[in-house]
């Protein structure tokens, strides 16, 4: 029987009338870099705080390495946490901040000295022991917060949107650093963010949350290619196209306009209102109707955007008037279409994912790309 | 941990009761029938009737108010000038002035009061309401300065610069942009200085002419004359009600 690093089972948490975490079950493996992703207010931070013990769940069980810690106070769980605003102790220098957890565990001072030195090397801040917190840059403070939580060798490290306040370049650098450190130290990381880019880049697996409910748990590749529902499909990735219709069974999908497309069979969705979800880069586009490809529609180019390594088209079709198509810019001689051109876009059966229809996906919380 | 929470809560409410208790008893006994302080025998407003009839009370109340108002006007005016000059123009003596302004606040009031009295006596200046006002202002100007300066520091000069680029000259900028934006700070300073001046005893006591009283001074004369009488309670209750009224007004204006 595998022992999971962290298990939460049927955990629910209410604040007044709001159900922040709704019957959530998650199992996180040892040495995993696991992310909790979702828009603001979806319950991911509350879930993290429940694992930390900073909130008590109304129902459910929390286990750390197989041990039930639901009623164990925070300071007795062997966790490490990096807070959104870092929470570095302003009245202590770098050394004392990092040593704090070790001192709470009564580690002898000479050992503390060694371990602080080592962890500072791991986070690439050698010699920073005597610096004061307010002398450090954002990225450096980040790393001290990380070092402080890691040096105690916790069973699991919890990170609550730690990169939010950093500039773009530094954030990108830190993502690489975090991944590297996690690999080097081997600790299980549970990372909470609303930025899908962070989650996709760093995670071994991730869970998408919405309104307190887990939508899907899978590795990044699978979340991207096989989203479980329309929300996940929209939230993840740069863009997604939906064609609405009804699934007739036998791999046949009929749109409102009566056009038939071929999809992979899904018996559960027969005669249900559904959509076909297609990533923009899975289309083929040409000025002549293609041969031998089952799914083709005719359309007119509305907008052409030259993005350097790729070209983005917005195509108006009878079925969906804003189809987004990405074409990699492979050769200088390839044809680039202009607004007004008539084109045919097509896709293979596997490129289209059949998903249940959902009313109005509110994406008001689309992460701002800074 | 839950135990400490409970302890803190209980402690808080006990202390709250203890703090209010003396005041409550004071007010209660102002309604006491007999002259005795021993027990509450009956409810009467006779103390209040004699209070209302005591002309000296109303005169000193009136004095407290108008003196405080004058002091506020002077202090805000001069304190504002000082704060504005220091923050906007950053003159060279800035740090010295900052430290100097702290001195009147730190020096115990009795020393300020007595030295001022001696000062007036030496120069042959007769004591009058003016000397009271001067004494108050000497403390309140630095106070107003500190409060207004704190607000001014956090206030971006870009607003004034924007006004200038839009064609406003210095005076217009001052009245249309700076002062309105500083209103919260000015109001805060005004309240603090008013309450301080209105409630002041020590300085007033030593710088006042004979026969002229403010409310706190009048209270003191009644207290130090004979030990007890319940009309003192009535006077105190009156003062308490006025204080609560002021605090309430202050809250309302701040909310606005």
């Amino acid at each position, binding site marked *: 029987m595998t022992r999971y690093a962290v298990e939460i089972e049927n955990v629910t948490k209410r604040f007044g009338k709001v159900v922040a975490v709704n019957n959530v079950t998650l199992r996180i493996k040892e040495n995993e870099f696991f992310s909790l992703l979702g828009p603001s207010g979806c319950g991911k931070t509350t879930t993290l705080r429940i694992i*930390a013990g900073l909130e008590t769940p109304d129902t459910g069980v929390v286990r750390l390495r197989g041990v039930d810690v639901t009623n164990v106070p925070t*300071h007795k769980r062997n966790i490490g*946490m990096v*807070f*959104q*605003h870092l*929470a570095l*102790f*302003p*009245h202590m220098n770098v050394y004392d901040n990092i040593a*704090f*957890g070790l001192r*709470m*565990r009564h580690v002898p001072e000479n050992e503390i000295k060694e371990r602080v030195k080592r962890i500072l090397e791991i986070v690439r801040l050698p010699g920073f022991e005597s610096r004061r917190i307010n002398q450090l840059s954002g990225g450096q403070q980040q790393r001290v917060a990380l070092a*402080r939580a890691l040096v105690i060798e916790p069973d699991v490290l919890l990170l609550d949107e730690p990169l939010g306040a950093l500039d773009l370049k530094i954030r990108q650098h830190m993502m690489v650093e975090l991944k590297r450190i996690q690999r080097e130290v081997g600790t299980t990381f549970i990372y909470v963010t609303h930025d899908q880019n962070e989650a996709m880049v760093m995670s071994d697996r991730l869970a998408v949350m919405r309104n307190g409910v887990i939508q899907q748990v899978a590795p990044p590749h699978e979340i991207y290619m096989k989203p479980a529902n329309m929300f996940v499909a929209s939230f993840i990735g740069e863009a997604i196209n939906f064609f609405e219709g009804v699934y007739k069974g036998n791999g046949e999908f009929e749109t409102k306009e009566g056009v038939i497309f071929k999809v992979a069979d899904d018996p559960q969705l027969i005669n249900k209102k559904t959509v076909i979800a297609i990533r923009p880069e899975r289309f083929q586009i040409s000025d002549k109707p293609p041969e031998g490809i089952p799914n083709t529609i005719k359309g007119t180019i509305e907008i052409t955007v030259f993005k350097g390594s790729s070209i983005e088209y917005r195509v108006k079709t009878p079925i969906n008037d804003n189809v987004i198509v990405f074409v990699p810019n492979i050769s200088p001689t390839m044809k680039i279409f202009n607004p007004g051109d008539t084109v045919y876009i097509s896709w293979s059966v596997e490129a289209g994912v059949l998903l249940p229809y959902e009313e109005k996906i509110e994406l008001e919380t689309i992460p701002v790309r800074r | 941990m839950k135990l*400490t929470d409970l302890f803190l809560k209980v*402690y*808080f409410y006990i*202390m*709250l009761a203890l*703090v209010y208790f*003396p005041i409550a*008893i*004071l007010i209660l006994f102002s309604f006491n029938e007999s002259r005795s302080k*021993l*027990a509450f025998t009956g409810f009467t407003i006779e103390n209040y009737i004699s209070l209302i009839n005591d002309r000296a009370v109303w005169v000193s109340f009136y004095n407290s108010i108008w003196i405080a108002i004058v002091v506020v006007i002077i202090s805000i005016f*001069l304190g504002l*000038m*000082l704060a504005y000059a*220091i923050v906007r*123009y950053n*003159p060279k003596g800035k740090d010295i*002035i900052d430290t100097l302004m702290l001195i009147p606040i730190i*020096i*115990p*009031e*009795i*020393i*300020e009061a*007595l*030295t*001022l*009295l*001696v*000062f007036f006596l030496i120069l042959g200046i007769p004591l009058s309401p003016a000397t009271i006002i001067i004494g108050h202002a000497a403390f309140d*100007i630095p106070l107003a300065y500190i409060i207004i300066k704190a607000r001014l520091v956090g206030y971006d000069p870009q607003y004034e610069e924007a006004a200038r680029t839009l064609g406003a000259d210095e005076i217009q900028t001052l009245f249309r942009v700076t002062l309105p934006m500083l209103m919260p700070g000015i109001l805060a300073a005004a309240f603090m200085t008013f*309450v301080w001046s209105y*409630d002041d*005893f*020590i300085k007033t006591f030593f710088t006042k002419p004979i026969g002229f009283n403010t409310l*706190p001074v009048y*209270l003191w004369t009644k*207290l*130090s004359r004979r030990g007890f009488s319940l009309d003192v309670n009535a006077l*105190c209750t009156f*003062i*308490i009600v006025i*204080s*609560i009224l002021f*605090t309430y007004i202050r809250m309302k204006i701040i909310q606005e």
Partner: protein
Amino acid sequence: MSPEFEEEKWYIRLLDRIRTSRRLKIALLLGPPLVFLIIFFFSPFAIAIMYSLAMFEKVVHQYFLVPRISLEYYIKFLNLPGIVNVILKSFYYAIVTTVGTLVLSYPLAYYLAFKIPERYRNILVFIIFLPFWINFIVRVYALKFIMHGAGPLQSLLVAIGILKEPIKILGTDTAVILTMIYSYLIFMLLPLYGVLEKIDKELLEAAATLGASPVKTFLKVTLPLSMPGIIAGSLIVFIPAVGEFIIPVLVGGAATATLGLLIYRYFIAVGGLVGWGIGSAAGIIYIIIIVILSYLYIKLVGGEIRLA
């Protein structure tokens, strides 16, 4: 070429001069307030210093400045009978009051800052601060009324049987200290609450995640971070408390003479060159002692934070 035209030009020229010269603007703004303060605060203060150094002589009704410096008044003051007692007593009251207010208000401030959700906080803060907006003398009298041997509280206690007979509290050290603590509580509570309220709650959570129990968190994080408030509160209470004279007069007796009372007596009751001389000397000594003690206090307590 009308006369009004001429006047306008002069007036505007002056304004322009002011407008363009930074120096003039500064002078005009700093001038009046500084002049006022120099005349009415700093010169009285300077005069007091000169008085204490016996630099004044009186001829008939005129006072003259004499070019000499003498420490006679300081010596006279320090040689007053029982002066050591008075000074020690004043400091004793002040220290006990400071410690008392600190111990009593810390839990209050802590409760307000950490244990109350935001929406109730303002109301509770208002309620606990409200009594202290009431006039100082009224509050002192309220306590006196309760403490009085022939007053309601004591009669009640006797009637119930808790006391056999009324205790004489008024006129004792206890009365003065109790009243001082009651009156000065707010001056400690305000800075403490101000500092505690600003402590980032995330810091406490971080300490918990690092293994610190609630007690350890308090000792290692909350307490050190509240030090500036403790220092500020202590100074705001201690400095005036040493010179307090209203409370000893109203609530104390012959045995509770304080420095403030002494200064008052020498200025008013004795008066004249000698009275003012000794009074000023006492005042200057008071100020010097306070400055030294405050400096030491700040150094000592400020230094300890670094040690921890």
